[in-house]
Each structure stands twice: as structure tokens, then as C-alpha cells.
């Protein structure tokens, strides 16, 4: 099939992805490199953030008082009526058909008007929650609709907001998820498997590899890179390590990341008698993260909920022995007994046992696992693959399956 025109994609995000948000940055750069034009729609945008080489359109700010909100709303209605009347007319009736009240239709028109200004081939919502109340925008502007799901918006948001995706799941949408497990979850909602593309995260394997000369730290060192969030299962991890410490194992555990559960975790370390064996390092740069990976023996990701997890890919690429939980996408990230070990979640004793078994393995076996992990990440989770997959996703040259 010949490409007749340049594909143009509108990517809806909360904000312009910062330097550490590698997933969206890599994706945007990859698409641009393949000749796809990207327009970003964000809620909040500051001029100096624009360094991605794409157009950025921000949503109107309705937080600046009643008068400003009224004036902005009136202006947007005028725009809707006289500049984009057809798109807005379509949108209004699509919303009405879904049973949305006239008042809410008008509200939605005002709120989503900033997306109507562009002619797009695809309108892609970066998170499931961003597509809520905008289920008809893509169709109204004549674009195809795509939605990416990450772990938390697929598994946690529906618990917080029951039925939040019920309208979305009735629409012709192409979905992108990170793992087969997530694909399964979506198909359980009645969505056709062919519409759910699994494109796992990818990492820069030239950056994350063992050729940077950092030496291992003395002693036995464990490492986790994670937000200090309950879903990362760090309290269970600490409990497992406390069991090992009680058996006389001497080690140090480094945790890289910040988050709202800091107090909980420091207290757990204190109460479990691990305060001298655990260091909370806070947020570090990718170079520093790489150095800690190079210096550690075992990488732990004993999450409660996890879409896929880039950090585990990075740790594998760095030759760490990785132990992960069986949360959602993790067993696809690490293959049990091949590229690391998978332990059922919420079972500190099982994690402790697994770590003990690993420590008792002969060096040749450990080396074998390390090599298989490095090779698998190097061949299967490269940025180039992700770029190619996304290009296929939008160009529809390939059928999912």
C-alpha cells in the first residue's frame, strides 16, 4: 500500500511530558522520525516546555474566576458556531445520541473546543481517564480514535469511579496496552482482541548496559526503583527482607524514588528492625539509577499492581538478577526461571524463600539467567521496535494479532 499523505496525530495528555517521562518522549520522537506529524493537546502548558518539536495546544483555563470563565466560555461558543460549525454540530448530536443532557453537551463543547481546531487522522488519548467525556470528539472531527491504557487507569480507576469506561468501551476505538495481561483485561470488557494492540515499553539499550564501568558495591545489595506508592508493594518487600535479616543474612537495600508513602515505609523499616539496612535515596537521574543498578546484585519489583514496568527492563538490561511479583504485566516482563523469578504477590515469606534460593544458586546458573535477561531485553524491548509498532498501529499496514 502506498502512503498518500503524511499521517497527523493528536496526542491528548495532561501535560507536556517532562524529561523523565521517557515513554511519551520516545514515542513522539519515534513517530516524528517516521514522518508522522504530532500535535500535543495538554491541560497546562508553559511556553518554555516546548522542546519536543511539535505543536502544543493547551486547554482553556477555567480556574481564573467567574468573569474570565464566562468570557472564555462565550468566546468558545462563538468559535464553535462560526469557525467549526460542522464538527460541533456532529459532536452535539453524537453526544445527544448517547443520552447526554443539552446542558452537558454545551459544557463538553466548551471544554473540548481546543481539540476541534486541528484536522487529524488520529486522536489518541494518552490515558484511559483522559478519554472520559470525550468519547465522541474523534468521530466528530473525522479522526480515528485511539486510547492508551497504563496499569493504574485500567485497574484502579474503575474501582474509584465504577463504570467510568462504560461509554468508551462501546465506541470503535483502537487500544494500546503494555502487556498481554492488560489485553486480556480489556477483552473481558467485551472489546475485540484485534482492537487491542500490545506494545510493551522499550528502553534505550545503549544507555542501559554494563559497559559503563561501575563496579559492584561490597556486600549483598538489593535495589528497587519505584515511586513510594502502595501499589509498588514495598511494605511486603521490607517484610520479606526482615525475614531474611532475622535468619542472619547481611545485606543493604536501596530504594530509589519519592512518593506519598515515605512515612509509612520508613516506619515499616524501623518497626521491622531494618532501619540500618535500608536507604531511601529519593529521586535520582537516569545516570545515577544506572550506576546503582550496576552496583547491585538483586533487583526487586514486588509490586501489587503493575502494567509492565520499565525499571525492571532497565535492571535486566544492566544484568541484575530480577525478582518480581506476578502482578499483571510483570510475568511477561520477567520470565520465571529464565530471565529472573516471579513470586506470587502479597506473600513476603515466598519472596524471602525465593531470594534465599537465588543466593544459593551456583554462579554459572546466575550468569545464565543474567545473560538471558540481557539478551531478551536487547532483542525484544528496543526503542526501534516500539517506534515500528506505533507506526504500524497508526498506519494500519498490519493487522493486530
Amino acid at each position, binding site marked *: 500500500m502506498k502512503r498518500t499523505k503524511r499521517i497527523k496525530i493528536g496526542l491528548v495528555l495532561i501535560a507536556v511530558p517532562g524529561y523523565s517521562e521517557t515513554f511519551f518522549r520516545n514515542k513522539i520522537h519515534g513517530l516524528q522520525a517516521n514522518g508522522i506529524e504530532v500535535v500535543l493537546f495538554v491541560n497546562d502548558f508553559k511556553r518554555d516546555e516546548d522542546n519536543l518539536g511539535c505543536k502544543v495546544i493547551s486547554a482553556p483555563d477555567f480556574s481564573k474566576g467567574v468573569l474570565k470563565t464566562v468570557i472564555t466560555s462565550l468566546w468558545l461558543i462563538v468559535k464553535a458556531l462560526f469557525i467549526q460549525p460542522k464538527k460541533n454540530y456532529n459532536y452535539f448530536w453524537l453526544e445527544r445520541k448517547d443520552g447526554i443532557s443539552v446542558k452537558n453537551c454545551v459544557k463538553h463543547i466548551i471544554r473540548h473546543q481546543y481539540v476541534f481546531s486541528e484536522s487529524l487522522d488520529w486522536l489518541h488519548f494518552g490515558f484511559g481517564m483522559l478519554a472520559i467525556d470525550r468519547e465522541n470528539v474523534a468521530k466528530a472531527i473525522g479522526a480515528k480514535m485511539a486510547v492508551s491504557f497504563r496499569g493504574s487507569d485500567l485497574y484502579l480507576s474503575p474501582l474509584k469511579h465504577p463504570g467510568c469506561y462504560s461509554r468508551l468501551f462501546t465506541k470503535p476505538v483502537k487500544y494500546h496496552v503494555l502487556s498481554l495481561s492488560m489485553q486480556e483485561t480489556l477483552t473481558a470488557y467485551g472489546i475485540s482482541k484485534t482492537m487491542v494492540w500490545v506494545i510493551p515499553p522499550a528502553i534505550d539499550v545503549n544507555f542501559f548496559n554494563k559497559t559503563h564501568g561501575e563496579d559492584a558495591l561490597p556486600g549483598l545489595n538489593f535495589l528497587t526503583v519505584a515511586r513510594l506508592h502502595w501499589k509498588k508493594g514495598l511494605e511486603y518487600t521490607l517484610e520479606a527482607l526482615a525475614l531474611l535479616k532475622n535468619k542472619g543474612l547481611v545485606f543493604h537495600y536501596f530504594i530509589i524514588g519519592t512518593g506519598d*508513602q515515605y512515612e509509612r515505609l520508613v516506619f515499616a523499616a524501623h518497626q521491622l528492625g531494618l532501619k540500618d539496612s535500608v536507604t531511601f535515596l529519593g529521586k535520582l537521574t537516569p545516570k545515577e539509577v544506572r550506576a546503582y543498578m550496576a552496583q547491585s546484585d538483586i533487583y526487586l519489583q514486588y509490586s501489587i499492581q503493575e502494567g509492565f514496568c520499565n525499571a525492571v527492563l532497565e535492571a535486566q538490561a544492566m544484568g541484575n538478577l530480577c525478582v518480581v511479583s506476578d502482578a499483571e504485566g510483570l510475568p511477561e516482563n520477567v520470565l520465571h526461571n529464565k530471565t529472573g523469578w516471579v513470586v506470587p504477590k502479597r506473600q513476603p515469606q515466598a519472596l524471602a524463600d525465593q531470594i534465599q534460593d537465588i543466593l544459593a544458586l551456583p554462579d554459572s546458573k546466575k550468569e545464565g539467567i543474567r545473560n538471558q535477561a540481557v539478551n531478551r531485553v536487547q532483542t525484544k524491548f528496543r526503542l526501534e521496535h516500539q517506534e515500528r509498532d506505533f507506526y504500524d498501529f497508526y498506519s494500519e499496514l498490519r493487522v493486530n494479532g
Partner: protein
Amino acid sequence: MTSKPAVAIYSGDIPGTTFIERLVLGLALSGQRVYRFGFLKAPVAYPKTVKVVGYRNTKIGKGLHLLQYTLLLILFRYKDKRQLDKFLKETATHLTRAKVKAYPVLWHRPEVFHVQWAKDLNNWMWVQSFGMKLVLSLRGAHINYSPIANDKLAAMYRAHFPKVDGFHAVSKAIAQEAEGYGALKARIAVVYSGLNLEALEAEKLDGSSVFEMVSVGRSHWIKGYHYALDACKQLKHAGIPFKYTIIGAAHDIELLYQIKDLGLEDEVVLLKHTPFDRVQLLIRKASVLLLPSLKEGIANVVLEAMSLRTLVLSTDCGGMGEVINDGVNGFLVPIRNPKAIADKLIEIRALSNESKKQISNKAYNTVTEQHQLEQMVKGMQALYGDVLHNNGKGHHG
């Protein structure tokens, strides 16, 4: 009556939490003169012996309050005001706000200034320079875990605790924690929480045939609910029919996810914060009140359940072991141990009605012996008396 000193019970807000209000009322009804300083959150109806020196938490409310006490101090106690200003300038992070709080205290000058929350202590060290005695309550989070993750707070405690005139500890365990920050043992009085038992006088209700557990408390990690849910999974695995209600944890996404993850949707209910009479009813109907906490002073809800003759299973944390004697008047299990919780629940479920009754009667007796409101008031007054009695003994520098 008039010999009783004037005491300020300071919690920052008026009214404060239930147990602080219980203390205020208990003291007032015993004839103690009580000051309540702070911002007025809601209307209060105190006995005459309580003087409320409050302000509305608005710019105008605070402005008028500050103006009134600034004028009084300038006109009648100018030297004191200057001394206080100097102190506040050196220590306060927000000077005007500090003045709004401090000026009325300097003007009324109660003999004892009793700070309820340790994190506030930094703002009140100055009262000692004006002859007031400083008493601090050692309660919950402020002592049990906040200073462990917050080095600055721990340093503040270490700097000031040795200078405080008297401490009220809600349990022996929390007194020990405070000693770790330099509180002098001789200045700590353990005064257990007192309940108004007459208000809790009620017959135990027969619940349904299903084994029902209930927990009550805000949705916070320190409450250890995720361990209780892991224990529920083990119960379910053992084929035991049960129902578990957590009051006050509705919409907690961590717990919601765990319930779904463990397939406990039919057994576990999360309820939002509920008025006390309804909570009371749910406790009375439950087979067991479960307290899976990681740390507590002494949980009031346990005392309430014991007085309502509902069996209690608690983790052995903080001061809980000072109330519950395992197998005698309730049940204790180690913290962070779902298996121990599940095993103990199975054990409780298998008890004969006679044994259950015996244990709940003993629990009731413990509360009446150890946690009467009058006891708390007397204990507190003895502490104030000690503090004032030690006047001039070089108690603090």
C-alpha cells in the same frame, strides 16, 4: 473549688477531637477552671467553668482577635508583650499567625498550659518564661511514627522534651517512646483515657449466624487494614463464612483493589465515616471488633467495644497490651501478621458461648476499673498539681 488552678487545654481548634472534649468536660464538671484557646470550628456549649477565647478562622475574625489582645497587652502588659514578641520573632515561621495564637494566652495567663498535640510544642515553649507550667499530652501519631520519618520533628522533640514540666501519656508504651526523645520519666504521668460508661451502657446484641468482624477508624496505613484483608483471604481459603466491615475506610483505593484482587467482594464492606450511634450498633452486633493496627496509643474504639461487651482482637501494638490480656479479657496477636489474625479469628469463632461471655464480662470489668472518666480527670488533676507543686525546684531552665 477556687483553689483549683486554671488550665488551658490547647488543641488548636474548638471543639477538638472527641477525647479532648471529653477531658475538657470532665475537668469542667469537677469544678476546674478551663481555658480553651484556638479557632472556633463549630459552636460549643461548655459549662460555666470553661472560658472560650476563640476566633473565627477568617481574616476578619483573626484580625479583630489580634487587635483586641494587642491593645490589651500594649495598655497593661507592655513589657511582657515586648518579651514575647522577641521570642516569637526568633522562633515563629509566620509571625502574625503566631501572635493571633499567643497574645490571648499571654493576656489570660492560665497557670497550666496543656498542649494536646506534640507537633505544636515548638510554638508554646515560651509560656514557661511567664510563669505558666507547660504540660504535653503524648498521643498517637505525633509520638508513635511521625518523628521516625521526620528527622526535624525528632530533633525538635529532643530539644524541648527535657524542658517540659509534665507529660500526660495515654499509655505506658507511649511514655517509653517519649523517653527516647528526652522526656524525663519522673515528669510523665500515665493517665488512661476515660469513657463515659453510662452513655455506653447497652446489652450485647445477637448478630447474624455468620461470623462478623468489624473495624472502626480512619483510612490510614497505620491502621493495618491490608493485613486484616490478607487474613480474610486465609479465612476464605479455610472455608469459613464471615463478613468483615471496615467503618471509615470507604473509597480507599488501596483496600478496594486488594478486596478485588483477593476475591473478597462478597465478604468485605467498606463504609464511610458513620455517626457514633450507628457505629455503636454495628459493634454491638459484631462477633469481634478487630484492631489490626501497626501502632496505637490505646485505641478508644477498643475500650468502647469492651464496654459494649463485644469481643476484641487487637494487634499487640503500643499500649494495647496494657488493656488486653490475651485469652482473658480479649485477644492479642503480633503486628503485621495476617496468619496470626486468621488463626486467632478461627479460635475465637470456635469458643463456646459461655467462654465468650466470660471474656466479654472481664473486658467490661477492665474498662470500668481502668478507664472511667472520673479516673482520667483525677489523674490529670494530680498531674497538674504535681507540676505546680514542683514550682521553684529548678524544674526547667
